């Protein structure tokens, strides 16, 4: 029984989608639209972090790795598209020739094909997360230990990328692309096309996550967050659920990376390490953990602030970001969405002091559809 609330929600979602699809490309400058496209790609990753952290309570500090895996897959495809048009005019990417390689490494070979690269961008992170998740969750590594282990993963992955320069491009990463599926990436219309694709993929990912968190599985995730060990006595094995949500969120991160790279034109270890990984968490925290709209909103807010700061006062960005971490933990644990809700509740109470709690009605409608 679709209530009035969910009807309103769909209307709002549709309006935002139309705004992003048509109004933004028509009004924003090339530079701003490109920036927005980049943020929307990152929002896909934030949805994944929200699933695992906001909904399931597991803090992953290694999502830069999954983002990077997806980004590198796409970058490999784009780099191979350059063909012999590079500086050295060989079949190999320039940095390989420069490093003395004469043959394409085996794991680069599938990336000649766009769809293979896309598939890898999603599946490789998911498989890595499945493996790591299975090993850690099976031995009942929980809470902060999971955070520390994933942080170590971020460190190790970035070190590996830097260290294996002939295969990964080292510190510089992989950059200088020409075409995507034959379209010139420098062409403004092509960039607009990628922007539109990003909006559509983000909308689909949002719906996918919405479906997950409203399913019975979504409630199991909430139970894991509240009292994982208690859940075992109800007949659920948390390990499978945790591996699942870790893998899904890694896949979303990989997809985000694949959409990010053609818009930004570079992927490097600096997108993968400890620092970017933990920064991703704050996007979700600022927007409001445990709400999907909060994840998207927070990504836009924090990254918008970041580019505004780096244009105006670069030296103060770290102070601001640092205060954001502290403030969101101490003062606004529910983030922007939490503030909006509190404001709405207050408004409702002022209007009709005796009315039943709106949140209860919403909870009912959400559960009994």
């Amino acid at each position, binding site marked *: 029984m679709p209530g009035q609330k969910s009807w309103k929600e769909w209307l709002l979602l549709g309006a935002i989608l139309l705004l992003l699809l048509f109004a933004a490309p028509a009004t924003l400058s090339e530079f701003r639209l490109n920036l927005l496209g980049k943020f929307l790609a990152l929002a896909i990753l934030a949805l994944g972090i929200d699933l695992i952290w906001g909904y399931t309570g597991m*803090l992953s500090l290694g999502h830069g790795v999954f983002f990077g895996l997806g980004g590198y897959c796409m970058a490999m495809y784009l780099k191979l598209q350059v063909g012999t048009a590079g500086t050295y005019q060989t079949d190999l990417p320039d940095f390989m020739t420069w490093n003395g390689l004469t043959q394409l490494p085996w794991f680069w070979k599938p990336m000649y094909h766009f769809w293979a690269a896309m598939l890898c961008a999603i599946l490789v992170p998911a498989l890595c997360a499945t493996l790591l998740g299975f090993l*850690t969750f099976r031995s009942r590594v929980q809470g902060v230990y999971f955070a520390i282990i994933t942080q170590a993963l971020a460190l190790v992955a970035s070190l590996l990328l830097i260290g294996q320069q002939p295969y990964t491009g080292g510190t510089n990463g992989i950059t200088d692309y020409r075409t995507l599926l034959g379209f010139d990436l420098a062409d403004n219309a092509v960039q607009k096309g990628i922007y539109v694709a990003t909006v559509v993929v983000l909308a689909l990912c949002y719906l996918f996550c919405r479906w997950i968190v409203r399913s019975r599985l979504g409630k199991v995730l909430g139970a894991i967050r509240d*009292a994982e060990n208690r859940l075992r006595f109800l007949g659920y094995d948390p390990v499978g659920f945790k591996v699942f949500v870790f893998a899904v969120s890694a896949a979303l991160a990989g997809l985000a990376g694949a959409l990010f790279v053609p818009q930004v034109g570079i992927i490097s270890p600096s997108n993968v390490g400890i620092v970017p990984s933990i920064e991703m*968490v*704050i996007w979700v925290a600022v927007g409001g953990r445990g709400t999907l709209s909060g994840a998207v909103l927070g990504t836009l807010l924090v990254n918008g602030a970041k580019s505004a700061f780096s244009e105006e006062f670069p030296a103060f960005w770290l102070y601001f970001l640092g205060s954001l971490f502290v403030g969101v*933990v101490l003062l606004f644990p529910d983030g922007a969405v939490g503030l909006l809700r509190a404001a709405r509740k207050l408004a409702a109470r002022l209007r009709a002091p005796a009315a039943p709690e709106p949140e209860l009605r919403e909870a009912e409608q959400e559960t009994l559809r």
Partner: protein
Amino acid sequence: MTPTTFLVGQLFNGLSVSSILLLMALGLAITFGLMGVINMAHGELMMLGSYTAYVLQNLFVRQFGEQNFGGYFLVALPMSFVVAGLMGLLLERALIRHLYGRPLETLLATWGVSLILQQAMRQVFGANNVDVRSPNWLTGRWQPSAGLEFPHLRLFIIVFTALAIAGMYALLFRTNIGLKIRAVTQNRDMSACLGVPTAKVDAYTFSLGSGLAGVAGCILSLMGSVGPTTGQNYIVDAFMVVVLGGVGKLAGAIAGSFGIGECNTLFESFSTATMGKVIVFTLVILFLQWKPSGLFPSKSRSLD
């Protein structure tokens, strides 16, 4: 070089790496192991210690000339403890005390603090790395036989770490304040009922752990150059030590740092430093399969 000298050399190098790890992890063993606080600013507290050494070095050079500046280090060790300890005290009073029992939240908040400290240090000392020179009495080396050499600096670090451990044990298990620290970290409510001033003890304990980070940073500054982001590079290693060792026991930190330190030097000698780290990380994950709560687990009957 005979196999024996190679082995002894390896063991020694491993031991000195382990000692540095242990010094870093010792502070964490207190703040994380005993108090359950994930202090991501631990690395920056170390850097505070390093920069203290740097400032004192420059002061001494100006005051006593290039030849006689070496005494600065004896002043720098206690000073770095005090500086980092005071910062820790401030951190605990202003932030951490609101977050006890929520480790993930302390992780995020202290990460924010670490960013702020980094930027502050960058603005005060510049973005480039600075060098802290060893005092002359630490620059020599001891050569007991051909092919074997033990730099004084590394010997000093090993001895200093051993003393620091002994001091920690004495403090925690032989003194009144140590008893209070253990009581509060084991059962806060009960201790409060028995009249232990828990808030005070929390502040002292956290500041003690922070001070130790400062000392570690002071010593570390002799091993390489120091920059605003240097601390960040060590934080993961230090946490891995505590996780491997098992949280809440000093013996765990000792065993963990020796395991990781020796393995790191061993694998580095066969491959590269990067691959050494990768292998060690993989081994730690595999080890946790076998012993999920580390080498020295603490048993508990509670549900979570």
